[in-house]
């Protein structure tokens, strides 16, 4: 009985909602710390190094899998709860006065959560999926002046590995001629190709000649400054942060109640911290796209 009760009973569902919800709050705090680097001007290198670390570090990987699982579990459990709760009152009231006894947030957790879920999905499509899987993700680059006085572009690589050649086509990718030139210039010694999006490898011996950063910084800046959709993306982002704020306005302290922590000693402090968290965190998140969009 004990085992199945810990998955199926009404109270167990609350534990899982609370544990996954609080874990997601931790995730939010971490994610925010990373994003705030976008507010520092000319911070591309640091930000891209951070992005690389976040996608490759094994400890971070474990945390990110925990986050994926938490979001899934939290959302599924949340929908299940909402469905069961709707069934618990098959015939509704003709006259209700809900604001007399409960807060807006507490009554709309499912709607707010769904908005947050939609946001998370679009956010992942726009940034996470590109960072992980997009073969055409631009590599970080910087502009330099060539001896001729013309502007040229150099790729920025890991551990100061310098890209010796200054050639990119208009789309920011390495041109075909570039690879052919090298092959002929070195009499076939260097037959280069791009692997795993960021690496330039000599096919002959597998030597990594260069490893660049995926330019998540540029992707983000371009996204919110897009001439056509930048404003819409910015507004959407800010609205989603409102939903998140309201979700947490109730959710943060609610999680402690679900876990059985309620008493005169801690509850006032938990409630205060929860309200502060639910205002400050979404606000700081929202400032970033606003800053990017309106400082172009």
């Amino acid at each position: 009985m004990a085992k199945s009760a810990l998955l199926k009973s009404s109270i167990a569902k609350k534990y899982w909602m609370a544990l996954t919800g609080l874990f997601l709050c931790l995730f939010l705090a971490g994610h925010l710390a990373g994003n705030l680097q976008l507010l520092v001007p000319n911070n591309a290198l640091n930000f891209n190094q951070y992005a690389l670390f976040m996608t490759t570090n094994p400890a971070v990987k474990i945390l990110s899998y925990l986050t994926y699982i938490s979001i899934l579990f939290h959302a599924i459990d949340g929908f299940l709860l909402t469905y069961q709760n709707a069934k618990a009152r098959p015939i509704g009231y003709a006259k209700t006065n809900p604001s007399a006894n409960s807060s807006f947030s507490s009554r709309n957790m499912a709607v707010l959560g769904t908005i947050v879920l939609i946001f998370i999905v679009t956010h992942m499509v726009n940034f996470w999926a590109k960072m992980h899987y997009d073969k055409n993700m631009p590599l970080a680059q910087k502009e330099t002046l060539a001896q001729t006085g013309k502007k040229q572009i150099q790729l920025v690589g890991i551990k100061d590995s310098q890209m010796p050649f200054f050639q990119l086509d208009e789309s920011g990718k390495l041109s075909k001629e570039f690879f052919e030139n090298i092959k002929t210039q070195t009499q076939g010694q260097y037959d280069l190709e791009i692997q795993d999006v960021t690496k330039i490898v000599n096919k002959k011996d597998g030597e990594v000649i260069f490893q660049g950063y995926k330019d998540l910084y540029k992707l983000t800046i371009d996204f919110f400054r897009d001439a056509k959709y930048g404003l819409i993306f910015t507004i959407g982002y800010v609205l989603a942060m409102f939903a998140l704020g309201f979700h947490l306005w109730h959710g943060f302290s609610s999680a402690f109640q679900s876990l059985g922590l309620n008493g005169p000693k801690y509850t006032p402090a938990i409630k205060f911290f929860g309200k502060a968290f639910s205002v400050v965190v979404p606000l700081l998140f929202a400032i970033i796209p606003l800053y990017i969009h309106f400082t172009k």
Partner: protein
Amino acid sequence: MSTAKNININLKIWRQKNAKEKGGIVDYKLDNVSTASSFLEMLDQLNEQLINSKQEPVAFDHDCREGICGMCSLYINGRAHGPETGTTTCQLHMRKFKDGDTIYIEPFRSKAFPVVKDLVVDRSSFDRIQQAGGFVSVNTSGNTIDANSIPVPKDDADKSFMAAACIGCGACVASCKNGSAMLFVGAKVSQYALLPQGKVEAATRVQNMVRQMDEEGFGNCTNTGACEVECPKGISLENIARMNREFLKASL
């Protein structure tokens, strides 16, 4: 000090012949209601009017009419036991209403509280939860032990008594948007779990009562706190937290 006067009111009352039939809201006008009368006396007055005009009176639950039995119910203008907090419907007075007011009166709504007739609902699901574990097993050998021979810390005794104030009225379920019974069950679990006599069976009690609660079809708590506001006996959300703790302890 008496400022009693008479008011005329419009009533919108849920009428339903029996558990099977579909019900609906029916409008009534009731004149000359004394503001000194209680809400249930107002309904008595309406029923008198209905009986005099050969109509079926409105069925509603009541017993003690002094706020201790938990029998009266009613969802009045969108709130369980009416607009006042900390009172049952029988303790509500017509001085809370104004001349010309429209008052909605509906039964407590929950899958686990099926309507029997009009405003009367079957709350025996609460009894079954109580029977599943809301007791302390003792041998009735005749050797009754003096209650004071087991020391109980004052603080625990106070909290237990506060939980025991629950009259099982079901207002918590009625006002919860999720139709959750956790305030009731939390109170019943706490009342025993806080006392040494109740600790012995604490684990099986909370498991059995929660299982019964789920089986009856009550919803899941999302901590909106509506129950605590509407409970006529001021049962605190701390009791739900305590039940959650007890349940976790019992399940691990």
